């Protein structure tokens, strides 16, 4: 069967149709020029030309700061109640899909996180093809993570070739079938080809802690946290508990953390497992390019390039990773 595509002039209709299924979010360029995942206002189009949003879609699954538990003397700890609405995320690039795949492995693995699971269940993912720029590294350091989506759109000059990747995708396709036409032209190379390289899932030796690069990175790092806040797979969080202004209530808050912060490896008594910023870079490198814990051997870098784009000091782990990992595609 010939692939199906939706002509460019039908894109507004497709979006309106999708809106019937759920609230529709996608990359939207703000007045300040920043592209963010946000609600696509009726009658407007998402910015499909932008290569990356400032924050990745993880913000929908793990909020930057959120209450996770509430305590009262009468009821004890209670899960934070949340009104979760169905959401379609439109226009996710393969790297962001792979990022969600990684978060799924972490938060839906052996001990599923209830808030994450509830939010994840309401998401419909619609991916779209893209072409890497000079900041991307998906095409240089391929990932074992899968770029899974419910629908995937592949850009061609005349429109978007549409394929389904799940029963939810089939349902959506069925709902828009009158907008689809048969695609007779050539099908471009799949943008997702850099993902799902299972052979990369091998445990590699620890990176050399004595490399001068760790100190070099540390000397330039401002410790602002931008690299991990904007990373699609950085999920480290801090948990804080705040008492209420009474004698009987409290809330437990989870907020994004960063392995380059002083407190990240600090424990009671002020002892710090990674006192020096250079040690923190080695730690960050291990997580991004080697993986650890239950996901040892699974690099978590999906090559989106955000860390390089947002670092005020222009730090870039990629040249070092290319040297140390050296895995040609």
């Amino acid at each position, binding site marked *: 069967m010939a692939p199906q595509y939706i002509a460019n002039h039908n894109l507004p209709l497709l979006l309106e149709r999708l809106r019937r299924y759920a609230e529709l979010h996608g990359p939207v360029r*703000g007045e*300040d*020029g*920043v592209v*963010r995942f946000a609600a696509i206002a009726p009658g407007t189009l998402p910015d499909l030309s932008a290569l990356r949003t*400032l*924050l990745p879609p993880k*913000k929908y699954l793990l909020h*930057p*700061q959120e209450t996770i538990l509430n305590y009262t003397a009468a009821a004890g700890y209670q899960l934070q109640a949340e009104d979760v609405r169905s959401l379609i995320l439109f226009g996710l690039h393969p790297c962001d899909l792979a990022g969600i795949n990684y978060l799924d492995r972490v938060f839906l693995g052996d001990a599923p996180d209830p808030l994450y699971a509830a939010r994840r269940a309401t998401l419909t993912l619609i991916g779209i093809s893209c072409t890497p720029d000079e900041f991307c590294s998906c095409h240089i350091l391929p990932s074992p993570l899968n770029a899974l989506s419910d629908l995937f759109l592949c850009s061609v000059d005349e429109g978007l070739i549409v394929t389904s990747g799940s029963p939810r995708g089939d349902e959506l396709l069925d709902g828009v079938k009158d907008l689809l036409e048969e695609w007779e032209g050539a099908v471009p190379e799949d943008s997702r080809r850099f993902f799902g390289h299972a052979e990369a899932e091998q445990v590699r030796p620890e990176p050399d802690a004595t490399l001068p690069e760790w100190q070099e990175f540390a*000397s*330039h*790092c*401002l*410790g*602002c*946290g*931008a690299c991990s*806040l*904007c990373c699609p797979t950085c999920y480290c969080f801090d948990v*804080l508990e*705040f*008492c*209420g*202004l*009474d*004698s009987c209530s409290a809330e437990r808050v989870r907020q*994004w953390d*960063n392995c380059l*912060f*002083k*407190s990240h490896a600090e424990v009671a008594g002020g002892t710090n497992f990674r006192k020096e*910023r250079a040690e923190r870079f080695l730690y960050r490198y291990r997580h991004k390019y080697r993986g650890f814990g239950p996901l040892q051997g699974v690099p978590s870098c999906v090559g989106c390039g955000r860390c390089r784009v*947002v670092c*005020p*000091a222009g730090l870039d782990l990629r040249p070092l990773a290319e040297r140390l990992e050296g895995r040609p595609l």
Partner: protein
Amino acid sequence: MKKLRVAIAGLTACSGCQLSLLNCEDELPRMLELFEFHYFPMASSPALMEGEYDAVLVEGCLSMPHEKELLQELRRRSRYLVALGTCAVCGGVAALRNGEEREQLRQSVYGENQVASETYEPLPLHRVVQVDAAVTGCPPEKEELLRLLAGLARGVLPVAIDYPVCTECRMRENLCLLTERSALCLGPLTLGGCSARCPSLGVPCEGCRGPVPEANLAEALEIYAEKGFDKATVRDRLRRFCPEWKL
């Protein structure tokens, strides 16, 4: 639950930090259930120090001899002493001209008149007494103040923040004024906790919360230089709220 005995005092400052506390109008009734604000000259009279306190909150820096005595007296009487606001934490705007000739400064403001002849270079509290906790900001954030009080009521001090303004600015997905607009934004060097209040409104961070731990001044100066700001400009901006910056 026994009410905590609290003292709130102001030294050299604008009283804005104490006012931030009084501005928590919705929460004041609940505060009064938890605390006895025994000594709080700005809010109630007569204000006479008496007995011991569970906590004292002190706004402002030290610039006059009697302030030092008052601070030491409060310290002696209290279990916890909390520096309230940037002036108390790092000197603040009153210390803006520290390092310049004192008598000349006095004369340029008061002329030949002997007013303020007893003042000395403003100092943050930690230079004179042990400070157990700090809530910085000019003025402090309401949320931080309430969390401080709620914590004190349970006998705990607030967790110190260790990340800069940039962190919350990124969490809010703001345009980066430093990298994208080449503005002299002090976010990378300034302690967070304000939810990036100013950059979220398109105004570069002025550094009002003082230095973040492990601030990388050398790198920041290089970045500012690339954007066309020389060291003197950056120094003046940084020292507006925190004269203790070494550069």
